[in-house]
């Protein structure tokens, strides 16, 4: 009897905590969705359940004459996808040579990568800014992508090297016996086996530039070249509250697709991180 009772109390408390967490998690999300349908522009009128729901703010965002939102969206996607592609290519090559070859300078390079991955690359903000100014890459997406890719190399190389180390070397050795060249072993033996970690690195290197604010705000100058993070911040910071509902609509349009994408890849994220953390 008392065991049953104990269990009853325990479960009730558990569900109460879970419900409270549900409320805390979902309330801000619902609030922003609600705000995006609110008529009027200001924060003061926004309500979680709008009285006269309207799609006007979404329409405004899609109107290129009135808002740069679509440009920002396109810029963010472009920058993130290109960063992802270049990062995956460069990181695969570097990680592969660290994992499979023993060459002069290997130990020192690994050590350098380890230290470099600890310094966030935006710490050298001033230098990046001046370098971009000198090379004429200021206010260009190309410059931004270069900085993102360069910054992503050290950490992801370690992550991938850790994974590649777990793929038995006997595989490439026997392929070598059979006369396969360096490139063939790389493309046809090792890379297919490394697909899980490639997926993780691709996701990481897509999400990081997508969510980055600091580098983008330093390097991008023209409003139509902004990425989403810079553009949305600008929208909010200019006159706080004055464009809040439009901002809300913009936020919803980012959050929904990214959240869906994220939730469907979530389990790779976790496994990739634990693999990198415990093995690499």
């Amino acid at each position, binding site marked *: 009897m008392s065991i049953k009772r104990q269990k009853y109390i325990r479960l009730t408390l*558990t*569900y109460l*905590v879970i419900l409270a967490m*549900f409320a*805390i*998690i*979902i309330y*801000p*999300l619902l*609030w*922003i969705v609600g*705000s995006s349908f609110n008529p009027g522009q200001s*924060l003061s009128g*926004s309500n*979680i359940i709008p009285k006269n729901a309207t799609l006007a703010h979404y329409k405004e965002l899609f109107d290129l004459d009135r808002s740069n939102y679509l440009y920002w969206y396109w810029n963010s996607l472009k920058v993130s996808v290109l960063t992802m592609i270049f990062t995956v290519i*460069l990181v695969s090559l*570097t990680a592969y*040579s660290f994992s499979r*070859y023993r060459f002069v300078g*290997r130990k020192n390079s*690994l050590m350098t990568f380890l*230290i*470099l991955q*600890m*310094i966030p*690359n935006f*710490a*050298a*903000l*001033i*230098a*990046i800014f*001046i*370098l971009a100014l000198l090379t004429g890459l200021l206010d260009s997406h190309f410059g931004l992508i270069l900085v993102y*890719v*360069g*910054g992503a*190399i*050290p950490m992801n190389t370690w992550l991938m090297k850790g994974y590649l180390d777990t793929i038995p070397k006997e595989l490439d050795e026997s392929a070598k016996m059979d006369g396969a060249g*360096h490139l063939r072993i*790389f493309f046809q033996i090792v890379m297919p086996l490394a697909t899980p970690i490639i997926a993780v690195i691709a996701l990481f290197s897509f999400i990081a530039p997508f*969510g980055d*604010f*600091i580098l983008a705000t*330093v390097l991008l100058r023209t409003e139509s070249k902004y990425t989403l*993070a810079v553009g949305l*911040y600008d929208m*909010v*910071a200019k006159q706080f509250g004055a464009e*809040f509902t439009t901002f*809300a609509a913009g*936020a919803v349009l980012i*959050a929904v697709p*990214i959240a869906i994408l994220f*939730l469907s890849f979530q389990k790779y994220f*976790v496994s990739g991180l*634990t693999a990198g*953390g*415990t*093995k690499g």
Partner: protein
Amino acid sequence: MKEKSYQTNHRRIATALSIIPGLGQLYNKQYLKGIAFLILTGAFFGVFADLLNMGLWGLFTLGEQTPRDHSIFLLVEGILAVIVLIFGIGFYLFNLNDAYKNGLKRDSGERISTVKEQYNNLIDNGFPYLIMSPGFLLLIFVVVFPIIFVVLLAFTNYDLYHSPPAKLVDWVGLKNFFDLFQLESWRQTFFSVLSWTIIWTFVATTFQVALGMFLAILVNQKDVKGKALIRTVFILPWAVPAFVSILVFAGMFNESFGAINRDILGFFGIDPIPWMTEAMYTKIALILIQTWLGFPFIFAMTTGVLQSIPEELYEAATVDGATNFQKFKNITLPLVLFATAPILITQYTFNFNNFNIIYLFNGGGPAVPGANAGGTDILISWIYSLTMTSAQYSKAAAITMLLSLIVIGVALWQFKRTKSFQEEDMM
């Protein structure tokens, strides 16, 4: 040990001739290689002579007269010159070594490799270098170069009043560091920012870790129904891009119109709280928001670990008469902490440099009278505003150096202790 004596002296002659790269190789009858080396050397000096000359001069003097010299451009050219020079010296040493080795082969009567063999050799030994070089070059120019630049900048007086092209920048030695620790205004700001950075890192991270683990263990109880749904909802704050959530929270915490003051606190009859104008409340809000943003990650990790703990452990404990609490304390907690430890450390370093939340929520504010940092600025956001708004470049660089030293110190200490690093065969 005495050197083996040879009748010929090709190795010495080849090495000596290689003082001009290529001649030694030509002497060794490797004509193609020799010509290639000669052309490379010529090209190197042809292309880089100006850069080397200007750059090294500029690096020492940082310019002598305005408006002809732009100190910062000179500094950049100087670093580039040094990088190019290092590559050049590397090539030069390789050239000497190559001439010597081939000379030695001739001395001992061995055959010199043919062009085809050399090519195969190059591909075999050079393959890792070859495939690494694109990533490596990018890394040098985008990551290493800026770091060197910041380090050098920390020893100059580059700020609003010493700003090219109107003024020259000079080397000032350790002055920036002395200023940070000795000038009253700088020292006070520096230490108040540093202490908040540390408090912020520990409190916010510990909160998110504790909440994440607690919820994971809670949901993992066998008799809780609807696990899949609960887990999906708990992951949501992680799935929404952080910059979006932070901006949304900035709206919610708005003092006069935000949902927190108006709807929630108003509902309970509590007076509005000055979230954005009083540093103390901004700090509380920041910690709450970071907990909201950060716990799902820990939750997901811990859930993964919990699911991998074998059931037999608990069964054995039950047989031995352990209570639920004992099982938790002696089985669950140690296993979870052990498996997630490396990731927990990265969470701390992440928050130490968590610029986005500080800047997007309240711009590091509220402003503090008499200080050049806002009430909630952490080191990295302070560096940002010193650079972007008050043009205190050299001070910002000095603080960046201090920050990097802290991060590297902590991280190295941690990596030394992790197993994975010790197991790595470092040649």
